[in-house]
């Protein structure tokens, strides 16, 4: 494809629900072929943005383009090229999983039979079970399989792994990578840093309906701090002479020394080197969490209408 226009272009998007301002000047650009992480705490406006993008709700103001078209006017035609998994997956309780896949497939336009069969196997779905007998995770899997099997250029996934167990999450990540290999663009909304980190090339972080920052993950990391906790055989001594290191605490345990500090990502190597010299017993390196990104970069705590879950506060790298 020689088409270089972004798949999604949103500029200055606002959306009011009565007196509630859900989106307040949001920007988002997704280019062809990328996996774009769309991060924000609960209630920050991710689902609302996606609904505007799909032409389900009308923007109050701002510019919204999907495949260079207007989603509000031209929804069904544009939808032919995408597949969507809603945040709260709701299916028809009386249908079986397999029937649901076909019904969803018919709304997505065309889908690939071979891929459908592969995915059903990989996600360990029993297609003859009725949806009302499925667990939440299994319902989510039905929606994911339907979207991943669709012959779409764009996948729009709204917090797609919230009901999956860790094993299935791995399967999900593998399948998304497979789809990207074939040139599919993915918009992946999430409030969990680790998930986006594992998949995304580009990231847009929003908060209270506004884009806070956008770019590659490593770009963003450069300005944030990593939390390190190390138990060493010998005492590594006072580490505060290392550039970019702060919040240092040291505690002697019988034979060992427990050190904790935070450090600029750029100087992590030096610090780990010093710990290595002291003989590492255990080491935990926690990359900056979504919460930390907010807290450090903008010097405020999350607003009362937002919540950053424990899982995102304590996100560990993989």
């Amino acid at each position: 494809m020689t088409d270089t226009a972004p798949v999604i272009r949103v500029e200055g998007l606002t959306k009011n629900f009565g007196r509630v301002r859900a989106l307040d000047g949001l920007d988002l650009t997704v280019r062809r072929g990328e996996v774009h992480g769309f991060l924000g705490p609960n209630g920050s406006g991710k689902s609302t943005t996606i609904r505007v993008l799909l032409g389900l709700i009308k923007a109050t103001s701002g510019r919204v383009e999907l495949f260079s078209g207007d989603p509000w006017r031209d929804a069904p035609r544009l939808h032919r090229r995408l597949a969507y998994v809603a945040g709260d997956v709701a299916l028809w309780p009386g249908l079986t999983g397999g029937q649901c896949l076909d019904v969803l497939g018919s709304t997505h336009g065309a889908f690939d039979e071979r891929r459908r069969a592969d995915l059903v196997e990989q996600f360990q779905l029993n297609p003859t079970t009725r949806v009302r007998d499925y667990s939440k995770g299994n319902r989510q899997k039905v929606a994911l399989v339907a979207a991943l099997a669709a012959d779409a250029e764009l996948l729009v996934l709204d917090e797609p792994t919230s009901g999956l167990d860790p094993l299935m999450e791995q399967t999900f990540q593998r399948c998304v990578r497979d789809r990207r290999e074939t040139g599919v663009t993915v918009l992946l909304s999430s409030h969990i840093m680790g998930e986006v980190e594992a998949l995304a090339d580009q990231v847009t972080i929003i908060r209270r309906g506004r884009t806070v920052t956008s770019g590659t993950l490593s770009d963003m990391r450069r300005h944030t701090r990593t939390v390190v906790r190390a138990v060493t055989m010998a005492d590594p001594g006072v580490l505060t002479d290392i550039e970019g290191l702060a919040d240092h605490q040291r505690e002697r345990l019988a034979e060992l020394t427990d050190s904790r500090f935070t450090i600029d990502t750029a100087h992590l190597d030096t610090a780990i080197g010093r710990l290595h010299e002291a003989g590492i017993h255990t080491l935990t390196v926690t990359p900056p969490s979504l919460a930390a990104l907010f807290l450090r970069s903008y010097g405020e705590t999350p607003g009362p209408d937002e919540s950053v879950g424990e899982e995102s506060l304590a996100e560990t790298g993989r």
Partner: protein
Amino acid sequence: MSALHLAPDDRPRSLETMLRIVARIQRRSALTWVLVLGASLVGTAAGVAALYDTTAKIHTYAAAVTTGSTLVAINGKVEGIDSLGGVIQDEFGFMVAFLMPLLGISLVARATRREEECGRLELLLGGRIARHDPTVAALLVTTATIVSTAGLFAAGLALFGVPLAGSVLYALSVGGLAFVFAGLAALLAQLTLHSRGVYTWSLIILAASYALRGVGDVTNTWVTWLSPLGWAEKAAPFGDQRWWTLVIPLAAGLALGAAASWLAGRRDLGSALVRGGTGPDRASARLRSPIGFAVWIHRPAILGWLAGGVLLTGMMGALSHQFLGAMAGNPALAQAIGIGNGPPMDGLVAATQLYLAVIAAGYLVQAVGTLRREEGDGRLETRLSGVLSRNRWLASHAVVLLGGLMTIVLISSLVLGLATALSAGDMAEFGPALLSGLAYLPAELVLAGVALAVYGMRPRLFGIVWAGYAAMTFIAFLGPGLNFPQWALDLSPTTQVGNPPMGAVQSGALIALSALAGVLVAVGFAAFRRRGVPQN
């Protein structure tokens, strides 16, 4: 949701929390039930009191409705019908027999199985609410609603001069009826997987109770005692006043409720004793098409309302011969049930068709309500995120709705025509029965139009449509018999049709109704295209 953080052993607090939650979920529907039922009873009482203001008139009424057994089968055998209270009990008998049980069923089904189905119960039980508390809380809130309704009933009757003791006993007996069905629904909610199953089975049992009560009353046997409707009737509030009969529904309701909460405390969340098996692993081509899928969604409702229509028309048709005999012997009978003068057979068909119109309109309102549920549960969002446009989605449902309406009206009218022909021994009523059924279509479509317009503009206000439907039902069932003023009768689109085949079909009005329905449907489509999805 801070109220959910309870200490693990804080049992009374846990029930209290659940009660507060259920009361919140149910607040609106409970209030609607109390007000609609209360208003219906007060309206009936006012109408009866105004119309039968002398003992002589009451006596004529009593003599009329006890002639033959048709009306006994429909409204029940009222002991002490020779009194104001008795007349009211008789007039209100048919409505109360369905609405009171429905109150109990719907409030309980909503707070138990429906919540469990949506997964909201999981959230609460995760928050340390004991397993059987939702059932207990649902029953308590429903009981409170029933008691309030009964209170309004007793006060309403007393207001129009019915003796207090009789008023109270009447209110308690019909309250007991609702209580039994609330307990039954709570038990069924444990046994079936789906709130639809709760409704289906409770309504089947209600229909059986109705039939048993009818058989018992007509044959004058103990069979009446097998039916919860019979228990209420045997309290005889305006006759012998058997207060002790109140113990039966109370004990039955308590036993059913206790069994339900016992089961709720023992079974796994989301499980059921009666569960559906597996099904096909692929969807048929029909299910993949928008219209075929709409048929799948609406089929249960179409079949259910069709069964109601056929039951009604079959019964009325089959009883028509006997009914004619009764009217020949007592001209006041026709007056009492609002048929007036004219060929008695036409009158019976006309009354039946009016009831059928109420059934058909109820189907339409419920079916449009299903669309709202598709949206509220989040399935519409998924459906519209594909290649299906809003217009095509709504249009395919509208086509199926119309097809369902035609099915219900045509088959029920056919059954009416055939049953009257068999009962009366000639085919004279066959054509009129069929044609008068068709004549009501525009009036029914006006209700569908109102429902679609509200759905298109503000799905949240869908309750208005049900209120309108309740008003229409009230006018259709009781308006003619109680001599409502013409302007009140005219509020219902069914009045405009002209009461065929007894009266002449008002073709001008039919055209106007059709046009009105068309405009309303167009408004619904236009508004739906312009609004955000999902809204609930």
